[in-house]
């Protein structure tokens, strides 16, 4: 190294979610990952459903069906979180420059 200055301002500190092979930690790590993605899709579908309702492009029967299904999904998600001892915030993985995975307010 030349007789100068090295200043580093590294931006990305990887907080690696390490999943080791012991059954418990593996399950928990993978479950977090999987549920985070399921939750992302659930929120996406919910917002899309609301948009379709506002556009008036769904019949009353369709609205009821979509709403009931989404409600069941929401309840199912809550059950899964409870079963694995996770909170909604646990799923909100930080993607760095893309920001957090999920919109605030589940």
């Amino acid at each position, binding site marked *: *190294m*030349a*007789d*100068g*200055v*090295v*200043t*580093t*301002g*590294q931006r*990305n*500190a*990887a*907080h690696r979610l390490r999943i080791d092979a012991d059954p418990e930690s593996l399950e928990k790590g993978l479950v977090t990952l999987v549920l985070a993605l399921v939750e992302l899709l659930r929120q996406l579908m*919910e*917002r899309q*459903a*609301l948009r379709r*309702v506002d556009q*008036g492009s*769904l*019949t*009353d029967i369709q*609205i*009821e*069906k*979509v*709403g*009931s*299904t*989404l*409600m069941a999904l*929401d309840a199912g998600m809550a059950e899964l979180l409870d079963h694995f001892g996770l909170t909604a*915030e646990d799923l*909100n*993985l*930080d993607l760095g420059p893309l*920001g*957090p995975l999920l919109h*605030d*307010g589940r």
Partner: protein
Amino acid sequence: MAAEGGLVWMYGVASGDLEVFADGVAGVGGPPPRTITAAGLTAIVGDVSNRDYGEAALRRHLEDLDWLARTARAHHAVLAAVAGRGPVVPMRLATLFASDAGVTGTLQERADDFRGALNLISARSEWGVKAYAIKPADPAHAAEEPGRPVAGRESPAAGPGAAYLQRRRAQLTAAKDARSEALASARTVHAELGRFAVSSRVYPPQAPDLAGQPTPMVLNAAYLVADERASQFAAAMADLTARHRFVQLTLTGPWPAYSFVGDGPGPR
């Protein structure tokens, strides 16, 4: 003098006539800090090994949150110990030199810059202010919003599915409105606090899991405030907290003036 295979870690630079004591504070990487004086300035430095703090090692370490945490706190501890005695220009993490001669050279070459920075921060402190949107009350129990029936055109009757969608719409709209209000409050808070500061700096908002708060951060700022105005600044904070219902405000400080001393003595 730096040992063979050693590097010099710089913590900060103070005026040459400041008596620097960092009593009993362990530095980064072990040995306690020492000083190097040149050009009427005193650099507070520490000896670290090339093996653990050379470029390759640093690249690895800077991606390790545990290492970052330990090192940042050790770095800060030295500055906090010294800063009680007078202004110190704090360096960012990993400002390293190959030898003492490098430090001396930089003090001499950049003496004006260092003195300018010392002048800026003299008798002033940095205060950090963060604002978070406040989680809106769950509108699920509120009365149904008139004029926006979920069930469509004529029929107001809502089965459980439709009612669920109605609730979700209300929650999402409330969250969106809360965020807009919070952002407006943040702008006002920043403008008001800026009046008490010589300088201010805005950082990007912290991610929720880092910040430890579930609601979005709408302001993450640092203010350089004259020590004699610190109580006015604190009073302004209390006043703003009372007046702005859409944000939660937090205050940290006083900090060494990390945010107001530029990018350090790196190559220009």
